């Protein structure tokens, strides 16, 4: 399960960070911090769904649930388990 966190963090860094000197940790606010906008959240959702072969319903894929790698991990864990 820890792997999920690492994979998501790597994906977010690769996909969203613009500056090389920006730092990202597991609890960095992604949406409210302006790193991931609500549009780009769509590609993040798609990545999670295809990587972990899950389906995240729209009402669960909220900006709050995607606001940090920690929170995304909690969300993914819920569906991977189910």
């Amino acid at each position: 399960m820890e792997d999920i966190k690492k994979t998501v963090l790597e994906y977010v860094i690769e996909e969203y960070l613009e500056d090389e000197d920006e730092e990202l940790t597991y609890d960095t606010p992604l949406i409210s911090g302006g790193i991931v906008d609500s549009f780009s959240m769509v590609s993040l959702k798609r990545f999670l769904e295809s990587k972990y072969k899950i389906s995240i319903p729209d009402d669960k894929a909220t900006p709050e649930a995607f606001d940090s790698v920690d929170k995304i991990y909690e969300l993914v864990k819920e569906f991977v388990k189910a």
Partner: protein
Amino acid sequence: MSYSNKVKGIYKEQLKDIEDKGIFKEERFIHSSQAADIEVEFPKGTELKKVINMCSNNYLGLSSHPEVIKAAHEGLDSRGYGMSSVRFICGTQDIHRKLERKVTEFLGTEDTILFPSCMDANTGVFEAILSEEDVMISDRLVHASIIDGIRLCSAQHDTFKHSNMGHLEKKLQLHADKRLKVVITDGVFSMDGDTAKLDEMAGLCKKYDAMLFVDDSHSSGFIGKTGRGTHEKYGVLGKIDIITTTFGKALGGASGGCVSGRKEIVEMCRQKARPYLFSNTIAPVVVSGVLKVLDILSQSTERRDKLEKNAEYWRKGLTEAGFVLKEGDTPIVPVMLFNAGLAQNISRDLYEEGVYAIGFFFPVVPNGKARIRTQISAGHEIEHLDKALEAFLKVGKKYNVLGKSKQEIIAQYGL
């Protein structure tokens, strides 16, 4: 009527929240025409203050040009004030079509359709030409009006990192199976002042069979050797499938916009774009003004040449003073301050010194990237720029940001 206390309370709370976050927007009343020197009433009710305007989109200084004003008067006299109709019922005059032909010629495209604004052009175009089987791939820093247009369209959507061609190529490969693909970008990015690499983008679009969309609102009239726009600068005139632009900035600064590009796309907009179908088009007085602007620009490049020189002078002055700038070669020169409070304080002090330049911070720009966006005009004389530089130097010294690196400013003020 059911505007109860409960309803009122909800709005009051939301407005208070905006105020508490320090992002409440207040208008400043200008009591003069738009120009390099303006008279401003701010705060509301205070005495008028003469300031140098360093934040307008009046790039070519044509907003109050006597010839443009004269042409607008003539248009008003000969074609009246309004049309009281949308285009396809009884709202199209000969001069509307004349302007569409002139813009087509100016931008080097196949056809053009006018919209009440470029915001309307951007919100209407995607829905008119794309559907579920298609994909829109946009730069992450495109203008808010494009984002709204994308939201209104049923096609799939993806983004690529700002100006990152490698990332764009990956996205084009990822969406190779879609029926139609459109790559979407601004020509000049309004917050950073950098330009889209349209030559590379056109190459990638050709390779992956995608259309290329460019919003050239902050370019039309002055970017490129003859001011045709970003596509002229990058040598891809005639290769952009869809260009949207505004008449509300360099091209006279009043209002109105358009979609210009492939003939069939323009025709699809005429048949299906909702802001075109359900709203009056540009008023005759404005059409007449824009026609004159295009005449002026087709006769001489004097204005865009002066603007280029002014922008170089300004950028050099700020760099020598020791400010951190966003790199670029357009008249948009952002002075980076990183901290929102600092940007607000410096903007306020500049105003006291007679310079009108606005601070931008989250959510308009990403967190930690607060700045003062300065915009240069052909209406500025060197004396304006020297005076403004003097004010920047004084205020920059006060806040100890001159000669400091990004890291040093952040260490001093935080993010």
